[in-house]
């Protein structure tokens, strides 16, 4: 799945009929991807999500696409990829929100700088209370404990902590997408156990 590409000046706005056709063509897997991606982005935001749900993210992504505030070019990315890219952008905005900003109202007001390669950097540099640091330390320790015997997973987690992206990790380690997928799947499986009990708050 391609990331949402930066839009060109002459990109057209897809009309409601075209969007409806694209939705009808989406697979059960596409809907699973949207749900899990939105949910995981919000987990990464923790209390910065401000009560926003994955349904809120999706609804807002749709609104932006239909109103032309985010342009979907079907020749570059499918509709699922477009929604993923738009949710990514919104999560990035939420990560930059001032403490106390309400989720969706903030999203509505914020339209600048759609692409932020490392939204978490801002997220964790503002209002990091000792309690939040302690909770994060415990969650990280739990995840790393689960994966202590998995050298590849430990490598990936370490690289993420250093701010590396998936493509950068693959390139550095000369891994194929399948190699990376296999390792990351193991991390997701372990992370799920504490995701279901809490978030990055």
């Amino acid at each position, binding site marked *: *799945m391609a990331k949402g590409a930066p839009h060109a000046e002459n990109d057209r706005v897809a009309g*409601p009929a075209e969007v*409806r056709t694209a*939705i*009808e063509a*989406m697979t*059960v*897997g596409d*809907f*699973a*991807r*949207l*749900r*899990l*991606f939105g949910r*995981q*982005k919000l*987990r*990464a*935001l923790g209390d910065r999500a401000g009560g926003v749900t994955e*349904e809120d993210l*999706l*609804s807002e992504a*749709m*609104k932006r696409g*239909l*109103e032309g505030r985010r342009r979907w070019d079907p020749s570059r990315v499918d509709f699922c990829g477009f929604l*993923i890219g738009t949710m*990514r952008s919104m999560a990035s905005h939420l*990560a930059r929100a001032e403490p106390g900003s309400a989720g969706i109202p903030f999203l509505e007001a914020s339209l600048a700088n759609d692409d932020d390669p*490392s*939204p*978490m*950097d801002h*997220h*964790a*540099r503002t209002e*990091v209370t000792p309690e*939040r*640091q*302690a909770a994060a330390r415990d969650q*990280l320790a739990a*995840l790393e404990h689960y994966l202590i015997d998995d050298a590849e997973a430990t490598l*990936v987690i370490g690289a*993420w*902590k250093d*701010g590396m*992206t*998936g493509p950068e990790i693959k390139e550095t380690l000369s891994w194929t*997408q399948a190699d990376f*997928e296999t390792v*990351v*799947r193991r*991390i*997701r*499986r372990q*992370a*799920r156990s504490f995701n*279901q009990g809490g978030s*990055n708050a």
Partner: protein
Amino acid sequence: MPDDTNYALNLGRVLDGLAESIAEAPEEQLLEELQQEGIDPAANASATRALLLGAVVKHEQRLLNEARERIRSRRQETTVLTGTAPEARRTLLQRLFTSQPQFAEMVTAHYRDLSQLTDGDVESCLEDLAELGVSLEPTDKGE
């Protein structure tokens, strides 16, 4: 340099890395993971499809409401024209050009010389201005 003691930053990056991996993961893995989250994939597909299509319908309703408003506004302008005598229309156009000269710039040179215009020209010019969004309602009836 990475900061090993900024746990919140590091956890945020790890969880965000997991989110990004979902964007690229094979569908069959995601279906399995969705079930592990306690969500039935078919039910999720149905609910999410309904949410997305609902947004389309909402947008279409808004477009219709806006179009309805435009049509209503245009009909009001037309009512002003059809309910007005030719001389009154000429006076209205003259008043518009005098009080707000920028409107004169919105029409062709031919239309700016009112003495040369037929009643039909005046009506046509007023219709053009209405089409451009200029209000034809007299703002000062005492003039």
